[in-house]
């Protein structure tokens, strides 16, 4: 194990996959000469050349479609979309082509592309650079959605996504690229399905993903210290397909659930996990599940307004206290 930063983990996965298969290429805005806005492709242009580490024009739908077309012939493109807000523009090709082409061709064609993009809300970037879009992607059949909470997951998920024959959307986070964590020294492929128990506990399950796993872990420590409540934290690194069995098993142990999402509540991860709990283990519940979400507003520029619009660890603690009446 070696401790590296999140962006270094993504860079290592890129480097290894480019070295492993001459059909792997990386494309996106500023991924080449500049080395990526978050350094996730730093140095790869010099190492692998402009044919395989491609600086694209600012044409998200166009270059995403180009990557998908190349994947029809066995190329394995890793497409970086500089900010998830710009991925709205590429949704036509991701949803109408990549997600559907195997199905509508009766299994003749597939689009093994990886699209990775930093999502989430950073600091005062305003409404059009603060979208949280994972809930949009996870609603589309035929598309896998994963979202790493650590350098280890970021490394291993990207490697598995490149090798997998399905299109995979990797939802990263603008605030997490400098986060440190241990990554195995040997080559490691993270599963694209399932969930991980980030902290075991017996009293309540806190479901998180990506940055909200860290809010859940902070909240769990506060709950343990101040209220004697031992929360289990389940990391839903795979948002599509969601780990129905993992969700059921944890709630069956703790009998209580709080879902923590950075996005607005409407049609989101919280709503979906609650539906799964209802369907899988309703009679195991000792309390109605709660969700901790952002407010249903475009993200404001003003710092105080922005902070109010977003959830944090304290909101998770408050939700659990409400649930327990303490």
């Amino acid at each position, binding site marked *: 194990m070696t401790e590296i930063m999140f962006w270094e983990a993504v860079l290592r996965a890129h480097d290894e996959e480019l070295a492993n298969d*001459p*059909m792997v*290429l990386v494309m996106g805005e500023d991924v080449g000469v500049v080395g990526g806005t978050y350094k996730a492709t730093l140095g790869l242009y010099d190492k692998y050349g402009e*044919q*395989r580490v491609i600086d*694209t*024009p600012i*044409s998200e*739908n*166009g*270059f*995403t*479609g*180009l*990557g*998908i*077309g*190349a*994947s*029809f*012939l*066995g*190329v394995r493109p890793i497409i970086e979309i500089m900010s998830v807000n710009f991925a709205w523009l590429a949704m*036509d*090709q991701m949803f*109408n*082509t990549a997600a559907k*082409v*195997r*199905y*509508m*061709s*009766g*299994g*003749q*064609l*597939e689009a093994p592309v990886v699209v990775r993009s930093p999502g989430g809300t950073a600091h005062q970037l305003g409404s059009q650079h603060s979208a949280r879009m994972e809930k949009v992607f996870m609603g589309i*059949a*035929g598309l*896998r959605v994963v979202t790493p909470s650590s350098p280890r997951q970021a490394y*291993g998920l990207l490697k*598995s996504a490149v*090798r*997998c*024959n*399905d299109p995979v959307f990797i939802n990263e986070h603008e605030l997490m690229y400098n986060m440190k964590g241990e990554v*195995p020294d*040997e*080559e*490691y*492929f*993270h*599963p*694209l*399905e399932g969930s991980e128990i980030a902290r075991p506990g017996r009293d309540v399950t806190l479901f998180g993903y990506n940055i909200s796993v860290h809010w859940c872990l902070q909240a769990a420590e506060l709950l343990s210290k101040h209220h004697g409540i031992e929360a289990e934290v389940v990391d839903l690194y795979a948002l599509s397909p969601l780990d129905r069995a993992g969700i059921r098993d944890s709630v069956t142990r703790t009998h209580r659930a709080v879902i923590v999402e950075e996005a607005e509540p409407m049609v989101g991860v919280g709503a979906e996990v609650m539906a799964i709990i209802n369907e899988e283990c309703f009679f195991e519940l000792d309390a109605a599940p709660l969700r901790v979400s952002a407010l249903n507003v475009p993200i404001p520029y003003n710092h105080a307004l922005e902070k109010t619009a977003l959830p944090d660890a304290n909101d998770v603690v408050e939700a659990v206290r409400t649930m327990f009446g303490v």
Partner: protein
Amino acid sequence: MKVADKKRLLREMLFARRFEERCYEAYVERNIGGFLHLYPGEEACAHGVLEAADADKDYVITSYRDHVHAIKWGADPRKVMAELYAKETGVSKGRGGSMHIFDVKNRFMGGYALVGGPFPLAAGIAKAIQMKKGEEICICFLGDAANNQGTFHESLNMAKLWNLPVFYVCENNLYGIGTRIDRSTAVVEQYKRVSAYNIPSAQEDGQDVEKVYKAAGKAIKHVRSGKGPYFLELMTYRYRGHSMSDSNAYRARAEERMWSKRDPIIMFRDRLIEDGHLTKEEYTDMDTDILDEIENEVIAFANDSPEPPVSEVERYVLAENDPWVRGGVHK
């Protein structure tokens, strides 16, 4: 073109016409569902261009008006009709329908229903060819109205920037669904629009299959030689509405009559007769033979084929037994 090839090409075009007309009937009979976009009037475009391409090498991709291109590129007409009949024996196993004809073993890379969607996919196929240092090219057929999508400009820019082996064929039938080109498009001559991307282009009579063949040959030579993309605009006309749900009320009957005098099959037939390569009797026999084949083989196959099993409705969504989904450590 050799005389034998001309006669074969005429037969292929007539087959395409009769196939599409039979689709119309099958739709009225309710054997074909969904949306159905027919090709009569435009046969010289697909046939002229693809006759000039290499059937053993090149890739073809197009829009939802795709039956004829697929058949010309090697798809079994019985399996195309079976697809329209939503049968398991269809080219896309009954999952695609009229707008999603795929025949990948013959490098027919699909029909796509989003106007302008195939522009970047074609550039991507060309990028893959370039990475593999192949001699193939990708030929992308789309209508004039697709050129008002952002994907047109984004794809042309990248195709020229990276000198990709892609040949864009614009079938200009003068209407985007029901809106005439001069009411939707500031520059109606499409071949002029690509000059903004420094891509060589030409405009040709899309009703004369021999002219199309010649123009396409020049374009394909350019693209295959590594000089990058080419754009060919073919002036043509569809006899029917945009799709079966289109009443076609927006076009002047005089305009339709004018174009019917320039029918690509009749013009080619008459030229072959004038040149002494074909007799009227031969043509009539050819037509009868085609109608028999369509009824007794194509329609019969589609009719007699089974539907896909309902138990397989969730197949083809995700890859089956993909080991990378489970992850693992590799030392």
